[in-house]
């Protein structure tokens, strides 16, 4: 039987980044389980030396298409071209916004199965490739397979797999692809204005790893100050609910929930937040949620991983030690 083709779509454009390395490492592992071979499909602008780094993680072949633009539609056409020619059994994408779009367009075009945000992939004789993902709303981890599908595709969550250099020396074939279609992105839009988002220390919510949330249960200035001090100490961004922003304690840009602002830090600690609707939507994606509230029935405890029933002021006094 022909070897199963395991593809990794590299989207870092000009180098093999660690996310790609993670995917190739997993692909290599899967190739051993499933009698497969690993192709790193690289679109962008990189030197041969850089491409050869794919061998470190276990790739057998790199299919390289030189391309000046990083545009989803253009990459879709290139990828389609390659896929239509050589085919694949499984295609792994990263879950960056770019690859999420690219993989969706691809899956739709070829009507193949696409599993989002995988945290694990394995190969089973009866089921073929089995993808695991966590459904956000439920506390459920689902195992998914592709059916009636020429190939299985998936986007993979960052750090789901570990970048591992293989022991053996791999003979790597770099196949330069010659795409003959257009590289010009669709001119159906025009950028009127573009503003760079400033990444200020402590106010860049999107990249904050630790966030402290302040709610109505923080009743006085003293407690609020203690939380801010703790925030500085642990390098956490301090945000607030609508009440707190209305009261003038924090500026509107640090309001989480109502303004449609949602965050996904590694750790979110809610101080005196009861857990009104808008706020919960805004913080659900946090990896770990700790809630401190003196009302044991506060709704926030429904989504908190660690529940602490305590008066916020008393808690902060101990915490600030």
């Amino acid at each position, binding site marked *: 039987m022909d070897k199963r083709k395991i593809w990794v779509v590299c989207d870092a454009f000009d180098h093999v980044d660690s996310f790609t390395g993670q995917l190739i490492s997993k692909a290599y592992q899967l190739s051993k389980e499933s009698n497969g071979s690993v192709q790193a499909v690289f679109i962008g602008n990189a030197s041969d030396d850089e491409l050869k780094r794919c061998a470190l993680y276990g790739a057998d072949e790199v299919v390289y298409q030189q391309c000046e633009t990083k545009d989803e539609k253009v990459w879709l056409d290139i990828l389609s071209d390659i896929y239509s020619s050589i085919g694949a059994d499984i295609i792994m994408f990263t879950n960056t916004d770019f690859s999420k779009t690219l993989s969706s367009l691809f899956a739709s075009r070829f009507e193949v199965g696409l599993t989002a945000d995988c945290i694990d992939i394995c190969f089973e004789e009866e089921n073929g490739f089995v993808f695991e993902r966590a459904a956000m709303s439920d506390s*459920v981890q689902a195992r998914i397979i592709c059916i009636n599908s020429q190939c299985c595709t998936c986007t993979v969550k960052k750090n789901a797999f570990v970048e591992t250099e293989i022991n053996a020396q791999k003979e790597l074939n770099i196949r330069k692809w010659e795409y003959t279609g257009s590289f010009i992105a669709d001119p159906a839009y025009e950028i009127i204005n573009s503003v760079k988002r400033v990444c200020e220390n402590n106010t860049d919510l999107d990249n904050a790893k630790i966030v402290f949330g302040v709610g109505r249960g923080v009743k006085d200035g003293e407690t609020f100050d203690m939380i801010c001090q703790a925030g500085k100490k642990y390098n956490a961004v301090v945000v607030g609910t609508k009440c707190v922003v209305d009261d003038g304690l924090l500026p509107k840009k640090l309001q989480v929930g109502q303004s449609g602002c949602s965050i996904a830090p590694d750790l979110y600690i809610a101080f005196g937040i009861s857990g009104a*609707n808008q706020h919960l939507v805004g913080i659900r994606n946090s990896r770990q949620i700790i809630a401190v509230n003196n009302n044991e029935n506060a709704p926030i405890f429904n989504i908190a991983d660690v529940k602490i029933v305590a008066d916020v002021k008393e808690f902060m006094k101990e915490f600030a030690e």
Partner: protein
Amino acid sequence: MIKIVVCLKMVPGKLINAEAGGLIINPYDLFVLEKLAELKKSSDISVIGICMGGESARDGLIRSKALVCDDIYWLNDIKFAQADTIATTKTLTAAIKKYIPDADAVICGGHAIDGETGQVPAELSEKLGITYFSSVADIESFGNDSAVIVRRDERQEMTVRCRYPFLLSVDSFLTYASNLNVIALKRAQKWEYKIISAEELGIASTDCGASGSKTKVINSVNIIYKKESIEIGGSIKEKADHVKKLLQQ
């Protein structure tokens, strides 16, 4: 008159309010509805809602009608159920091509809060063959041949003029729509919501529902760490120390 299609999904209310029962409009879709309600006051736009859902979607559809929708296509058939993103996309595509083939814009919430994948908008744009814009934070205006939107990603915020037709995936959400008024709500309650079956839509069963899906969940496992919230007991000092330890990690 600019024709705008809004894809609507109803999700469990208890995802944002533990005491709520029933289904609510997905907060990302609600943002779109509210925005369109605002823009409708000063632009000549017609808003058509499309929703795949059973009878439990009715309350949400009534609200959508009250807020801004001029018309609603309710795809309600057991054959549509258990669709993965590919089947959902094909069903929505069939409906749009059949009922609003001349849509100028299709707008979707970026993802649904009940664990959706966020894949449908892009997949839909591919099937409809129209330009796709992701990470849309705001919609500013609808002109005669183009609209102005704001896209926001990690690095920048861009104001973009997009020519029709296009599909937007919107990343902002709302849990309350201030343009809802009770007079419109009452009218929406009296309106007749046409239910469209698979037969009426004219879609093959291999193109929708479980039979049209390309992925299938074979089993699910309850994960222990989420939801089962660990309560930290003991004195306040002990609680504080526990949190400090978690922070060190």
